[in-house]
């Protein structure tokens, strides 16, 4: 295919991917009259920040945003704190029989569980632990969600680091832990960053568990808050799209920062996994 044609096709695909998002952005910036105007106003409108004000200053969305930030960051940290050592353990040590393979597979299989299977028992579990309607419940659940991915990705990255480096350090008196922290981790920093970003995105975007495990606004995250504006009779389009735009910004920013590594990490994990 000729070069011009290919670039044109790529452009069409680009527009197709981005247009709905752009439209959402315009709805959040248009006055209500403009929102419903026909012909649709793609570019010719006077922007207003009223909806952002409605959603965040006088509405509850700043609360939802804060909750999402807390839950996503803490659960990512926890997933890394638990998952990185686990991945290291699986990658570096000799395991009896084929336990390493079996364990890895089991870990991965928990990711395959349809959420619907676990949601009611988890609801009851959280109720017993008095963690219902709390951010802590979501942190625990999201950590468990992300662990398989962390272990899978980091195992691949660790396998790329030659054992000799740690062995040399340990000969010099460094502990296993120290070697991991001081020698290996700095080497896999890009992979670690990509993994962390992926965990953040998963936790940030999650909906079903946040929906069921929260009962009042103190525990609701952004996706739940946005969904709760989709009412039976009317949709508060302005506030909802403003919230939607804010909800997607952190993800887009983070993802663009680690785009390259994400691709590499996924393909590495694919080859090893």
């Amino acid at each position: 295919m000729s070069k011009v044609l290919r670039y044109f096709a790529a452009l069409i695909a680009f527009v197709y991917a981005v247009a709905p998002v752009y439209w959402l952005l315009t709805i959040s910036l248009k006055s209500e009259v403009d929102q419903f105007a026909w012909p649709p106003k793609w570019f010719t409108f006077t922007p207003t920040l009223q909806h952002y004000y409605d959603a965040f200053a006088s509405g509850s969305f700043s609360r939802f945003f804060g909750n999402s930030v807390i839950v996503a960051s803490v659960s990512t940290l926890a997933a890394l704190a638990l998952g990185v050592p686990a991945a290291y353990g699986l990658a570096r040590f000799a395991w009896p029989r084929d336990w390493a393979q079996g364990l890895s597979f089991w870990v991965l299989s928990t990711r395959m569980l349809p959420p619907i299977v676990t949601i009611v028992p988890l609801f009851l579990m959280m109720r017993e632990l008095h963690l219902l309607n709390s951010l802590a419940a979501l942190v625990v659940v999201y950590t468990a969600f992300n662990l398989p991915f962390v272990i899978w990705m980091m195992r691949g990255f660790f396998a790329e680091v030659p054992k000799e480096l740690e062995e040399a350090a340990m000969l010099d008196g460094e502990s296993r832990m120290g070697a991991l922290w001081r020698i290996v981790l700095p080497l896999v920093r890009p992979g670690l960053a990509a993994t962390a970003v992926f965990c953040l995105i998963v936790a940030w975007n999650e909906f079903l568990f946040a929906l069921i495990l929260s009962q009042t606004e103190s525990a609701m995250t952004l996706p739940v808050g946005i969904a709760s504006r989709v009412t039976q009779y009317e949709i508060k389009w302005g506030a909802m799209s403003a919230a939607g735009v804010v909800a997607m910004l952190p993800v887009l920013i983070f993802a663009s920062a680690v785009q390259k590594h994400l691709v590499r990490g996924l393909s590495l994990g694919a080859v090893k996994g």
Partner: protein
Amino acid sequence: MIGRIASFRAALKQAHGLPWAAPAVGLLAALSIYPMVFSIKVSLTGQAGGFSFEHYLRLLTDRFFLISVWQTVIYSLAALTVEFLLGLTLALLIDSLTRGKSIFRAGLLVPMLLPPVVAAVAWRLIYNPQFGVLNGMLKMAGADTSRLTWTSGEGAAMISVILVDIWEWTPFLFLLLSAGLQAIPPDPIEAARMDGASNWQILWDVILPLLKPTIALALLLRAMDLMRIFDQIFILTQGGPGFATETTSLYIYRTAFRFYNFGYAAAMSFVGLLLTTLFARGLLRFMRVS
């Protein structure tokens, strides 16, 4: 028996990596094994209390369950096929560009990064029959949009919902297939080109076979997620109108949280899980063979 325990104990001592993995494994076990066991118990408890197979028996004759399974299959197959073909085309296309690759790639990835709830909300706005931009643009082109009700029309609802999935998740396949393409060494392609092979032949005989493991992985991952699809449909149509877009996850959700029948919902989830696992095995086997 005792020998087995003794050898297990010995193996345990050899597993030096275990303390490293223990906390992670512990958390995962707590949050996956207990719920599974509980769910099994609930699925075998009749509505009057006490042990009963009634929920599993009901599955065999429940019209709505069968319809939801069928709809899940249709949704998954349609979305998967288009997403794969489109994703592959885009991967090949972008890979072939010499400049601006990363800009295009960044833009193309946007849909899958959004929270599915936000994507669904954006499309609900777009699909609105009276005020949405889709009908707005079609009207400008002269089409009669009074019958185009997208997600509120029983016939068009499924297609509308599948289209959203395609928009949102083609980037995922695009990403994986791009990564796979990048990992292909250039030599076989060079060699084939020097032998005078056409582009089509290179694609079919060289690239695709080398891409097979990535394709298998991509299809598998996406298929698994498609079969449990929930978020988007929930926001777009809540499974409606009526039952038109009710996939198994939504029916299970409705049964559990609206009809307050956890036992039946649990039974359905297990059967659903079973079907998904069987399908995954089948897919893997198929990919290995071909």
